[in-house]
């Protein structure tokens, strides 16, 4: 605006113009359209347009049974499919007051933390690619592949597993599960050291992120940000700590907090969360409980009439599942409070006033998954 003063000579005057970033833009990681109003290179306003990948999952659940609608939740945040299934299953179990066997709980936590690892590894690759480094993208995918192999061998699918089900898990894990994981975790630790040598220690990368996309603590709370995005602003919001589910209360782990508030802090929080996930899995591996992997459930689940809410911590933040039941075998209403939708709200305030080049950097560290926004 400063150059739009008409008293200036004509050649020094500027005017605002609108640039559409997306819906087919590589750095939005999906079909999200950002309508950016620019003055030169300075961002004046950002308006996100949603709905390009709206599939009506919430409405579809109303015509499917409870077991059937859980498979749809894998398609919301496809990078944390296990955790989405877990959220839904927990809500159903809460309504029916089913006791899940200890072994199933342990398998669920291991799978959820592995899922967090895959998600953060993919994020690391794509984050570095948004900044301009290409190799990390391949390295991120290489390492994710090793974990996906474990998923494939144990659950039968790689991306949308539908493995966690009301009452436990679909199948017992393979006998070689524990030894496979132990060799995997050694590998993953090596990969994390590689990540640090390649990217974390790189001055150019650090300068691209430090002081960019500052999200103050108050703003993070008022926008409803959760997950690593909020924790990098110093907001303590880990659902695994505050509302433990599936036996997280028995485990020892730190909630990673950082007061940096900028993109660099968000990067560091995610890197540290990967190490914390490994630590959680290691605690469970040595004493994986024996016994049943699934509690007996009826073929067609009917919830007693009422309202049920369950929250879990996905790789991106807090996922809430709200079920309204009228006593039949189909939900009357199922509402998902997804983490990316509220984290998307942070895109405008942290970027207004910044340069357009930094938009990609701060978008990358917020780590949006677009199907999770639209559902």
């Amino acid at each position, binding site marked *: 605006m400063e150059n739009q003063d008409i008293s200036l000579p004509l050649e020094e005057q500027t005017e605002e113009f609108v640039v559409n970033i997306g819906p087919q833009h590589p750095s939005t990681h999906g079909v999200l359209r950002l309508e950016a109003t620019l003055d030169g290179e300075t961002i004046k306003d950002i308006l996100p347009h949603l709905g390009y990948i709206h599939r009506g999952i919430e409405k579809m659940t109303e015509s*499917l049974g409870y*077991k*059937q*609608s859980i*498979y*749809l939740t894998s398609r919301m945040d496809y990078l944390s499919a296990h955790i989405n299934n877990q959220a839904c299953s927990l809500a159903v179990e809460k309504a029916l007051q089913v006791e899940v066997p200890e072994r199933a709980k342990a398998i669920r936590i291991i799978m959820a933390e592995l899922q967090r690892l895959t998600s953060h590894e993919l994020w690391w690759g794509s984050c570095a690619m948004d900044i301009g480094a290409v*190799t990390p993208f391949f390295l991120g995918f*290489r390492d994710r*592949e090793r974990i996906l*192999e474990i998923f*494939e*061998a*144990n*659950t*039968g*699918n790689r991306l*949308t597993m*539908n493995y966690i*089900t009301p009452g436990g898990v*679909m*199948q017992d894990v*393979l006998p070689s599960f524990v030894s496979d994981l132990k060799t995997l975790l050694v590998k993953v630790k090596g990969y994390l050291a*590689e990540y640090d*040598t*390649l*990217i974390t*220690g*790189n*001055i*150019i990368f650090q300068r691209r992120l430090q002081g960019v996309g500052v999200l103050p603590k108050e703003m993070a709370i008022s926008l409803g940000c959760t997950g690593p995005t909020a924790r990098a602003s110093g907001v303590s919001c880990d659902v695994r700590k505050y509302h433990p589910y599936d036996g997280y209360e028995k485990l020892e782990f730190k909630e990673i907090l950082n007061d940096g508030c900028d993109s660099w802090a968000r990067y560091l929080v995610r890197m540290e969360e990967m190490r914390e996930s490994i630590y959680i899995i290691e605690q469970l591996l040595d004493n994986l409980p024996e016994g049943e992997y699934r509690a007996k459930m009826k*073929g*067609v689940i009917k919830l007693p009439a009422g309202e049920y809410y369950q929250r879990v911590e996905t790789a991106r933040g807090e996922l809430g599942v709200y079920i309204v039941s009228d006593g039949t075998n189909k939900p009357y209403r199922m509402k998902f409070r997804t983490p990316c939708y509220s984290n998307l709200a942070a895109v405008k305030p942290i970027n207004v006033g910044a340069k357009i080049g930094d938009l990609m950097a701060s978008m990358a560290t917020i780590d949006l998954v677009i199907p999770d926004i639209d559902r």
Partner: protein
Amino acid sequence: MKTVLRYLQEVALAFRSLWSGLRLTLYFFTHPRKEIITEQYPENRTTSINIPERFAGEVVLTHDENNEHKCTACTLCEMACPNGTIKIISAQVETEDGKKKKVLDKWVYNLGMCTFCAQCIDACPQNAITMKNSFELSVYNRSDLIKTLNKPGSKLKEKS
């Protein structure tokens, strides 16, 4: 003077951090056989490819050596399927003692609509169906995706 020194220090640090990253890249470049992650897919499809036993490729109705299956046409899988992938067509047959009995006529499976969620396998009380780990499922005609899973001439396995 101090700012110039700090600037030079920063430049030196930048080069050092760049070098430490590039050294790793160089290591991978000079050791191409250390960890081969590329799958030579069409070439290795009969040799080294590793498809896990549990991989959910397609639904199959298991038949034993006498061409007998275990499906009683109870349609629980049809009800468990979220997409309407499965159609069980059953026929009424009269047994010797005059009772009417439902037997399986056609087990129709639409592969094009299947999401491989394995809910049907979970629902089957007879364990008649399983997931096969086949993965090359593409066909030229869309109608080829609609398969009849029970083999011609197969019948229900008698309980011993």
